[in-house]
């Protein structure tokens, strides 16, 4: 069932930008407006994501600032923050706003600046990223975000025999995909040897297992099912699932199964009346290579325990049976935190329209986006399908 439709999508190149956040967001929002053929007068509200502007640049109340920049001053604006799932949560709420008839046309999107252009070095940014772990029960150990996913991945390796080579294959695949995407932060392919030769960040993750610090923005125009046909190229949102899990991670039943992703996927698939088998491709939250392995299993795209093997065998490559992260994923496309969730929606929209350019997949009709926050304790899973 169609819950809402995306009728316009835009994003900046992900990478290094020496530009204030409102200008970065403006580039994405105007691209989405133009793609949809709407002006700001037709857009009724903004559902906005930014994860860490307060910490990186002493910027809060950014919603009305970016709204002003794109001509939406006056309209209701809400900022969401759910760590790396920030703009997927904004998107979910945007979908609900048009589905319920509250609004007809809304803008959902996000922006973030994470590169040293903010003036912050790796140590400072590593602490800021760690703010999404528990202040009292996790941060005091010196935990970092690579380490959060390393803890999950190590247990997966222990239980299923997943190897560092398999993880490297995820990186190689996504860099290969990213090399076809002009919006990607990294445009260069890599090799398993190169990946396994990098310095260790938090074992088993080496440098090439980790997504980069990126700047960027993304935005989509979301309209109600009723209105969608009056636009040129609507793509339907048929399911959005959102679930959380216990924090801190030690208290989760089985941390590496990422239960929130399973719960969110079940909800999203049920709403869309699809099964994992009917999904043609997916954008998943590969902040670290191990995270893609866990996500591909949690979404049912690969059997439990087979995520690493599937990557190594090329089954999740763009020419495989279940292409994952054809955009390059967070790993190669980049991960400007608050922009990542809606950037996945931008990618699904373009793939389902057949307008993804050099990295277009062939014959795709149903795509899934998986965006997580924190130690996977927030996950939003969205199903999109071409409009019949």
């Amino acid at each position, binding site marked *: 069932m169609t819950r809402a439709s995306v009728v316009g999508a835009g994003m900046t190149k992900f990478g290094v930008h020496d530009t204030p956040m409102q200008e970065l967001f403006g580039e994405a929002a105007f691209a989405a407006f133009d793609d949809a053929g709407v002006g700001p007068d037709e857009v009724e509200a903004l559902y906005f994501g930014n994860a860490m502007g307060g910490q990186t640049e002493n910027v809060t109340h950014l919603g009305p600032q970016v709204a002003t920049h794109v001509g939406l001053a006056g309209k209701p604006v809400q900022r969401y923050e759910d760590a790396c799932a920030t703009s997927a949560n904004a998107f979910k709420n945007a979908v609900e706003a048009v589905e319920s008839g509250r609004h007809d046309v809304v803008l959902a999107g996000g922006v973030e600046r994470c590169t040293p252009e903010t003036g912050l070095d790796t140590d400072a940014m*590593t602490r800021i990223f760690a703010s999404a772990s528990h202040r009292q029960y996790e941060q005091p150990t010196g935990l970092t975000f690579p380490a959060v996913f390393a803890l999950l991945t190590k247990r997966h390796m222990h239980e299923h025999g997943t190897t560092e080579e398999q993880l490297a294959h995820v990186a190689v695949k996504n860099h290969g995909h990213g090399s076809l995407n002009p919006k990607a932060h990294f445009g260069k392919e890599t090799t398993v040897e190169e990946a396994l030769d990098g310095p260790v960040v938090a074992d088993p993750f080496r440098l090439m297992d980790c997504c980069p610090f990126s700047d960027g923005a993304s935005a989509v125009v979301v309209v109600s099912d009723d209105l969608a046909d009056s636009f040129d190229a609507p793509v339907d949102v048929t399911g959005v699932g959102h679930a959380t899990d216990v924090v801190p991670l030690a208290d989760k039943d089985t941390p590496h199964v990422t239960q929130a992703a399973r719960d969110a996927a079940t909800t999203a698939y049920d709403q869309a009346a699809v099964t994992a088998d009917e999904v043609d491709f997916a954008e998943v939250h590969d902040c670290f290579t191990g995270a893609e392995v866990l996500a591909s299993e949690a979404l049912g795209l690969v059997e439990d325990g087979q995520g690493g093997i599937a990557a190594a065998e090329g089954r999740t490559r763009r020419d495989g049976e279940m292409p994952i992260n054809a955009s390059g994923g967070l790993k190669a496309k980049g991960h400007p935190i608050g922009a990542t969730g809606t950037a996945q929606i931008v990618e699904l929209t373009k793939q389902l329209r057949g307008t993804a350019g050099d990295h277009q997949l062939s014959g795709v009709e149903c795509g899934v986006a998986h965006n997580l926050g924190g130690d996977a304790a927030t996950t939003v899973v969205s199903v999109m399908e071409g409009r019949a």
Partner: protein
Amino acid sequence: MSAQDDIELPETLSYHDWAAAVREGQLLGQSCNDCDHVGGVPSGACQECGGRDLTTVELPTTGTVYTETTINVPPEGFQERGYQVVVVDLGDARVMARIVGEHVDIGDDVSLSGFIDTDDDHPAPTFEPDD
């Protein structure tokens, strides 16, 4: 003789109680009087059933490594590199901790050895491998 015999456990477990206990070499959790679920850190409600009738319990100070990683790129405020962070399975509950001493692997036996409080006075328990 366990410390439990000596000191009064707080009826409602707060972070401050938990932190004070960590400084005293003790790990406190909560047992749910409705469903018997044990939580490894203070909470207002049971993670299993949502119940609020919780009893503070002393957790074992020995366990096995559930998962682990060694961190080479630390956050601001942590000077050293190459330290190991683990989740320790204590039986009924798990806790996150820092390893001091030799590197440990999943499944290794470890014992509570003390705490660090390099992070702005927030203590984290430390474990060391058993011989």
